[in-house]
């Protein structure tokens, strides 16, 4: 896995020279946490945005925010859950911003400049289903959407998802049930 060296080497050396081992140890721990959980942050963002470039940008922002605000986190064992929430929240914000921008541009764009609509023949069946699924996911409440994404990421179980989110397993099951029902009704 790729190494993430976020702190400046000089800073680390100075901290060590000053005997501030605890401080530099915390920085190293934080960097390790960020490196380990960066893929998760990216996939959570991707589950919301479905655009790799946007998801990468959001994941970067989530990592930076987590690094800057790490001192607000009282329990470092909750880091994974915390980062997931940061990434999800940023992705939702980005999605809404993108939608507003698209609506604005669509409203003002010349009809002749708009791309021609794709015919059903062009769209493959699987792609069509993916598009319908994506639209249905967008209509899910945030809590259910996050649970659906997390269970899909690397096949997380209900218990693992509950541990990531820091909520009881029953809550995850309930959200999953409601989300699946909603999607099934939308996609049937």
């Amino acid at each position, binding site marked *: 896995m790729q190494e993430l060296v976020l702190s400046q080497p000089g800073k680390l050396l100075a901290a060590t020279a000053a005997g501030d081992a605890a401080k530099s140890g915390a920085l190293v721990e934080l960097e390790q946490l960020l490196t380990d959980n960066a893929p998760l942050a990216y996939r959570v963002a991707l589950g919301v945005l479905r655009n790799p470039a946007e998801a*990468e940008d959001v994941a970067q922002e989530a990592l930076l925010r987590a690094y800057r605000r790490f001192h607000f986190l009282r329990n470092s064992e909750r880091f994974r859950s915390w980062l997931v929430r940061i990434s999800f929240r940023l992705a939702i914000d980005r999605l809404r911003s993108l939608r507003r921008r698209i609506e604005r541009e669509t409203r003002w764009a010349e009809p002749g400049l708009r791309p021609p609509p794709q015919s059903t023949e062009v769209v493959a069946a699987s792609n069509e289903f993916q598009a319908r699924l*994506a639209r249905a996911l967008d209509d899910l409440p945030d809590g259910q959407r996050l649970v659906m994404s997390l269970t899909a990421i690397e096949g997380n179980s209900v218990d693992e998802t509950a541990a990531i989110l820091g909520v009881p397993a029953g809550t995850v099951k309930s959200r999953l049930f409601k989300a699946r029902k909603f999607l*099934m009704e939308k996609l049937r």
Partner: protein
Amino acid sequence: MNCKACQENMFDAVAAGATTLSDEPSAHQQSCPACREYYELQVDLVRSIDSGLQAMVNQEMPASLLAVARNRLTQQPIVQPSWNYLGTFAVLAAVTILAISIGYIRRPNVYPNSGGSASVYSGDKGNQAPGLQLPPKSVIDSRPRTGKRTGFLSLQPVSSEATAGGSHQVIVLVEEQRAFAKFVADLPREPKIAQALTRPAPVALDAPVDIALLRIEHMELKPLESTQGE
């Protein structure tokens, strides 16, 4: 169990992620081809949803993500926690509150210029006009209190000796005393108003003033001229 109830049951079971049906729906769908087909459709749909979602999210993280994050972080230095900020903020807040409180207490007293106020009393019970009730031992300001401290209000109780000796007592604010003295000094030039006074303006500011019960037939309210203390 009819088909509708069975299909609702199957729908909920599939949505809940159950791999098997309970006894009754299971028996029904084995004997009902339509319900069996419905069940298989729902199972396929959930599989498609799960696989579609997995395909959507389980993509490899771009290699550039961490490198770019590192670059961005070196440009934006980390903000270390500092409890000193909280302490500084608390001290500043306390000083601000204290300053506001002192300013509030020491602010100039602004009373409404109401005609119904009477802050001057005579301690001579013998000459007390009928219907004028005076406090027996101490003189109080009869103006309505607002509950606010004024900081410079010179309200003092009349000493028992002064009251017993029958001398007149004037209890009045310094500013009002000056304004009243000026008002009285100007009265000789206003003969119509001067009819209400028992005698002309006192020479000294501290001199007692007799106030008789006035019969006011016409009143014109004017703001007092500002004095030095105002």
